[in-house]
């Protein structure tokens, strides 16, 4: 469905993204994980053709056989919003506060199809029902502020899937939501992806959320994929030191319900902070924050492939020292 080869994004002469190889087969869910500034959202933005003007992308992003990077704006807008849908982080900001729900959900249907008004209306009701919102007939007349955060995010998902996209890009879709609502929305995304054989590119800083939703994960740092593979493999047997550090920093929940010994346990932190654009070190980009870095890390590590597509690039992988 989606094949990325040698994707590079440059801004002001700095190469901020370089992704050698990343695939998203039809009907699967891939997570992009990293800290703010690691390049995960920029990667999703490059795939969506929504890069800012000063950014230049090269390489190939093949979507259903077609190279998205070769399309002009007019050609891309036939795909974006139709065959590729989007859900963003803050639903209250992504919805137009002045527009009724029905109109917002139907916007892409009206833009991309020739359906008659009645058919559009029926489709909207069906979509709202599919995202499990109660009383769709009354809901279409409401405004965003009359809905809770979780309901707003369901509306956005309904709008994103309105044109039956083959790929859904979701950028931190539940970060602004409560934990119970978060679980419901994630569950909804999983079941929609399964029912419709829709691929999902899921961007998040939280590996727990990614493990819940995705089949595969790509850990991004400094615009590079430092480790990728099956979510379960990567989470249970991380190799790259950055992946291991991200896992250790996650507050998580105690194992085996052992709340008593969980109390007061400090979290592992990653030293320093993500450098600004153009300030990453050469070689392994994580080396200036890595507790295991040595002189050899000044050279870019070669990718190592384990079984089942688990791949990482690290000179001092976890579990081997």
């Amino acid at each position, binding site marked *: 469905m989606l094949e990325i080869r040698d994707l590079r994004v440059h801004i002001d002469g700095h190469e901020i993204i370089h992704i050698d190889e990343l695939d998203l087969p039809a009907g699967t869910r891939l997570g992009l994980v990293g800290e703010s500034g690691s390049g995960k959202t920029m990667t999703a933005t490059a795939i969506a053709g929504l890069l800012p003007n000063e950014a230049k992308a090269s390489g190939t992003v093949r979507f259903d056989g077609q190279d998205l990077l070769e399309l002009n704006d007019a050609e891309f807008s036939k795909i974006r919003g139709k065959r590729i849908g989007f859900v963003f982080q803050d639903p209250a900001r992504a919805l137009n506060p002045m527009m009724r729900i029905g109109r917002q959900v139907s916007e892409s249907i009206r833009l991309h199809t020739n359906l008659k008004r009645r058919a559009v209306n029926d489709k909207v009701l069906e979509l709202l029902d599919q995202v499990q919102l109660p009383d769709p007939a009354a809901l279409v007349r409401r405004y965003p502020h009359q809905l809770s955060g979780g309901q707003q995010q369901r509306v956005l998902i309904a709008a994103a899937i309105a044109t039956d996209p083959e790929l859904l890009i979701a950028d931190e879709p539940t970060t602004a939501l409560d934990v119970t609502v978060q679980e419901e929305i994630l569950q909804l995304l999983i079941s929609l992806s399964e029912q419709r054989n829709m691929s999902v590119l899921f961007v998040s800083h939280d590996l727990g959320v990614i493990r819940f939703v995705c089949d595969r994960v790509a850990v991004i740092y400094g615009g590079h994929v430092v480790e990728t593979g099956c979510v379960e493999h990567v989470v249970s047997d991380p190799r790259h030191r950055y992946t291991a550090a991200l896992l250790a920093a996650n507050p998580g929940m105690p194992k085996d319900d052992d709340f008593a010994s969980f109390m007061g346990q400090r979290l592992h932190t*990653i030293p320093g902070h993500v450098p600004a654009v153009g300030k990453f070190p050469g070689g392994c980009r994580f080396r200036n924050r890595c507790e295991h870095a040595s002189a050899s890390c000044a050279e870019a590590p070669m990718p190592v492939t384990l079984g089942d597509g688990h791949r990482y690039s690290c000179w001092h992988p976890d579990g081997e020292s």
Partner: protein
Amino acid sequence: MAIADVDDMYFHYPRASLGAGDEGWTLCDISLAVHAGTTLGIVGESGSGKSTLIRVMCGLLHHQRGTVRFDGRDVGDFRGEDSKELRRKNQIVFQNPRRSLDPRMTIRRSLSEPMRALQGRRPDDDELIVSLEKVGLGREVLPRFPHQLSGGQLQRVGIARSLSVDPTILYADEPVSSLDVSVQAQVLNLLMDLRDELGLTLVMVSHDLGVVSRMCEEIIVMRNGRIVEAGRTDVVLTRPESSYTAALLVAARAASL
């Protein structure tokens, strides 16, 4: 000893239309005690009244029924100069540091404000640097504006600002939920260290049960303005009595590592 306690407290916002029973009330029948030197976690969904509750306890909002006491004294009795003392001893760190710091003020000015407003004094740079160092920042941030700092640095400034007036209770209202996982870890560790070093009493509002079960000895679970369950965190989370607490646990486990 309870440093703060609440008894049968009810609160509604102005112009709420009150009806039969709970209708219109934001907080109903709240009773709790905060013990000196301990950490209390308040969990529950958006709209359950967590943030309103801590604002009532700090005297920023006024309840209509019941009692709210700080250090054995009714919060309503802190008037005039005394009310400054109540606010000084009850400090809040807010969720979004980018919104809670004035974008047009330098960090130097933002950081001096509580001391100026609540203690009527002007701190010099040396004193400000001491409070910045407590939270792992240095002199170089003083002349900066909020937009020049990262989210994690800003939240550290927020904490330094609250601690600058030597509070008895530090309330943290979702202090890390707008931060990245790696920065969350730094800020949570910092709060644990400060609590241990300064003997602070900490009241932490969070929807993250992982965070609460790591940091808080006691927990209160809220829903629709009421406390549905309270007690020792390990006991409540190991054997929840309320079905709502059990549901929160299921949701928290689903998307955690």
